């Protein structure tokens, strides 16, 4: 990766998150579950990186790890050149304000006993210690920013609709004037019409404030709408990353291709279906093989013997596959 690209912004290198696999009698030594293995990316200021993957791919863990909300096992999280992964909790505090998380389930992310006003004002109290009057004023401003009416201020979260809730959590995340937002499936629970509104709002906010987004989603179309770059995760490993356009037009990794084929893209009428590869869960990973080996429709003997490294296809396009974009008959 080019060193000069990022002096400001986020740069993640070799990020790994491992959990001790717990079984019955406490921890068994050496038995770790790799939630993330050696993930790296660059997110320049004002841009959006889309993280795509299925459940269990580690995309939520990635979002949490970047914010140090989950313990990081290895790797560097460089924010304006400062490695956040090595900072103590206290040293981390000033940085926490600059990066906020928007949770997947907005209802869970709000204390049900608090009013919307208090929820939005909470970070103002915690980060700046503003007085009641100033907090109210700021809360009103934030509400307006996300297109909500001030009459909501006294309501409880449960009196709001799904779309309103998501915008409230967005307003709260914006309270500390962050520069980076980690958006964890911000639209997955929303109806179509509301989803469009949130996506548009996110775009506008980015243009207005020069925010960077780490946009996590399983919906490739939503990601494509908002992200300049994409990162495809499978079982905690990067399969492919690159500029959105290039990646979607010429997916190099078979997994990306499969995801793309499975997208319910708006094809009028009964388009001939690309059969998605058989994703039967296989009990144990084959040691030493490519993690996608058992699922891959294009696997060749080499894929079983040797896990591919992330290699460049040029123009910032990286892929972890021995035969990127390769058309052959599979051994399966």
């Amino acid at each position, binding site marked *: 990766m080019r060193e000069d690209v990022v002096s400001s912004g986020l740069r993640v290198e070799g990020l790994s998150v491992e959990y001790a696999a717990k*079984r*019955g*009698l*406490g921890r068994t030594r050496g038995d770790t579950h790799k939630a993330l293995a050696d993930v790296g990316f660059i997110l320049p200021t004002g841009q959006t990186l889309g993280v795509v993957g299925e459940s269990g791919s580690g995309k939520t863990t990635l979002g949490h790890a970047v914010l140090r909300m989950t313990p990081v096992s290895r790797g560097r999280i460089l924010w304006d050149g400062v490695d956040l992964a090595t900072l103590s909790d206290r040293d981390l505090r000033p940085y926490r304000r600059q990066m906020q998380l928007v949770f997947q389930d907005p209802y869970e992310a709000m204390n049900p006993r608090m009013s919307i006003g208090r929820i939005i004002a909470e970070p103002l109290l915690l980060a700046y210690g503003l007085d009641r009057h100033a907090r109210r004023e700021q809360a009103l401003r934030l509400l307006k920013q996300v297109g909500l009416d001030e009459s909501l201020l006294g309501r409880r979260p449960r009196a709001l609709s799904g779309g309103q809730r998501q915008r409230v959590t967005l307003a709260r995340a914006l309270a500390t004037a962050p520069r980076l937002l980690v958006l964890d499936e911000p639209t997955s629970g929303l109806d179509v019409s509301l989803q469009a509104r949130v996506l548009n709002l996110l775009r506008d906010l980015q243009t207005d404030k020069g925010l960077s987004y780490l946009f996590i989603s399983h919906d490739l179309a939503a990601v494509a709408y908002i992200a300049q770059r994409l990162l495809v995760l499978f079982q905690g490993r990067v399969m492919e990353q690159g500029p959105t356009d290039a990646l979607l037009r010429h997916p190099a990794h078979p997994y990306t291709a499969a995801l793309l084929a499975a997208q319910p893209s708006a094809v009028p009428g009964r388009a001939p279906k690309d059969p998605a590869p058989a994703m039967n869960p296989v009990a144990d990973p084959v040691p030493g093989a490519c993690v996608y080996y058992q699922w891959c429709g294009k696997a060749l003997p080499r894929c079983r013997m040797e896990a591919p490294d992330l290699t460049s296809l040029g123009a910032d396009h990286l892929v972890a596959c021995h035969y990127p974009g390769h058309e052959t008959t599979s051994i399966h």
Partner: protein
Amino acid sequence: MTKALLWRLGNSLLSLALLVTLVFFMIYATPGGPAYSILGVHATPAGVAALNRQMGLDHPVWRQYLTWWDHLAHGNLGYSFTQHAPVADLIGSYLHNTLLLDAVAAAAAIMLAIVLGLAQGARARSLGRIIGAGQIIGYSLPTFFVGTVLILVFAADLAWLPPGGLGDTARSAGLASLWRHLALPAVTLALPLAAGLSRYFGHQVRDEYRQDYVRAARSRGLSALRIAFRHVLRNAVRPLVTVIGMMIPSLVVGGVLTESVFNYPGLGWLLWRSALEQDYPTLTAIVLLIGVLTILGNLAADLVNTLLDVRVRYD
């Protein structure tokens, strides 16, 4: 799975060790110490000192603690000065009577609870309300009051059943007499248990009925009876095992009161008498025994649950 079982076993052993330690410090912290209570009004400083020496109570704490373990390991639970017998000998027959009463009461309570709970859960609106009212009354009724009233009605007034005891001749007089003596205490003891258990089970059944799979079963044309017995009941009984394990403390508490009311010669009755007479060795031994039984009961419930069901639902 073996690991999970071992883990549970280890936990229980740790609890047992803690229990023994805890009980030791409970006695150790007794103001005046046991010597005072043994000697009672005749206590003089010299007499107390002599007795303390005799019982090893003048040793440092750690030594007493080790002796405590040593005695327990050898089944030596101390000597009851009021009953003039080794505590271990004393407890045996009382424990036997208590287990008999508890088993009868628990069996009755569990059966009643399953029937009531199923009816309540399946018919939450009409019948469930009535059963619910019965339950809250059932476990609000103080055992000792119920027992007294039962004696008043069935023993004193109607003279159908004996007012209490197990009767010296109960055993030799055969099973019929035993049942007659057991009837009133067992009903008294079972009533609040059945109320609590059936409430829990009723909620369990009702929650199962709210699950999607019940509606899915209906959408496939399965009959209400089939759904109740083949699907709902199977899922609802599982947690009941744990609850039956947790029932032991209530059984003990109810047992103490019931046995006192009916002068039933069980562990609870003995506990009560030794508390009134300040017979600390016996008291301590019973507290310890009850603790051990509770821990073992919970362990048993855990084991059964683990064997029945290793999976974690809806995780």
